[in-house]
């Protein structure tokens, strides 16, 4: 049997441990995502609690067309959206937003101020445990829609298809948001880590 179905049947038969495993795996990631949609962390916590209950009540409707994780996050996003938006959700994705400050290119579109080296510095700091917390803060500070996509794709490691399902996005918009979010993060890393000249 597919592991997700095994888990679902364990939950239905009252396996509290199976439920605890699920909660430990997804509660915090769901909370991190929910914060994007609602005015406060307290409200986000309520939304996540509601999601757990809604998921348990709806276990019988889980068909395995998506993974349990995707199904759970989809419930979360639906509930978070209906709970109330922190901002207008209809920011057009089409608004241009350059990946790199245009002033860093010359008139021909070539680099005038090329990317500074920082990958080795990042590796040293991530190994020392000093960078992950900072990256988390930067991701939390991204514009909401970019943040949602980066959290699911790059932090949670979901496929683009699953992210589109969870956030009800087209593939194209998902890619644009991902590109912008990652481009901003890259710039923040460069600002933080570039070697002092």
């Amino acid at each position: 049997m597919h592991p997700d179905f095994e888990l679902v049947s364990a939950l239905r038969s009252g396996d509290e441990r199976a439920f605890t495993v699920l909660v430990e795996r997804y509660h915090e990631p769901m909370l991190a995502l929910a914060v994007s949609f609602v005015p406060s962390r307290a409200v986000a916590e309520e939304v996540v609690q509601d999601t757990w209950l809604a998921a348990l009540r709806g276990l019988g409707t889980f068909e395995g067309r998506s993974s349990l994780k995707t199904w759970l996050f989809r419930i979360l996003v639906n509930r978070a959206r209906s709970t109330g938006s922190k901002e207008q959700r209809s920011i057009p994705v089409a608004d241009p937003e350059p990946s790199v400050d245009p002033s860093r290119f010359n008139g021909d579109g070539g680099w005038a101020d090329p990317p500074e080296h920082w990958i080795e510095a990042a590796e040293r700091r991530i190994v020392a445990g000093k960078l992950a917390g900072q990256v988390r803060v930067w991701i939390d500070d991204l514009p909401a829609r970019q943040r949602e996509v980066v959290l699911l794709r790059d932090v949670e490691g979901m496929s683009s298809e699953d992210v589109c399902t969870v956030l009800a996005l087209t593939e194209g918009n998902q890619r644009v948001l991902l590109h912008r979010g990652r481009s901003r993060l890259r710039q923040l890393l460069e600002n933080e880590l570039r070697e002092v000249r």
Partner: protein
Amino acid sequence: MKLLRRRDLVCQQAVELVTDYLEGNLSPRGRRRFEAHLSGCPHCTEYLAQMRETIRLAGRVEPEDLTPQARDEIVDLYRRWRSEQSGPSGQE
């Protein structure tokens, strides 16, 4: 100086294509054009490596630990749901 052909990418265009490239969303021709640019441009090659590193670093972000109190609250939900399931007659 090398003459810029019309179909050649410039750096400012190349950085906008990085995600499409990594996602496999460029046409075969677009992909060749992007890779041709990279092969002649160490800065954009560095830029692409940095975008890959950015993705890798985001993947190293761990969720915060659930507090025991939060976990207990959710497990309580589960117990309540179980008792709803069993109903007053204790049947499932």
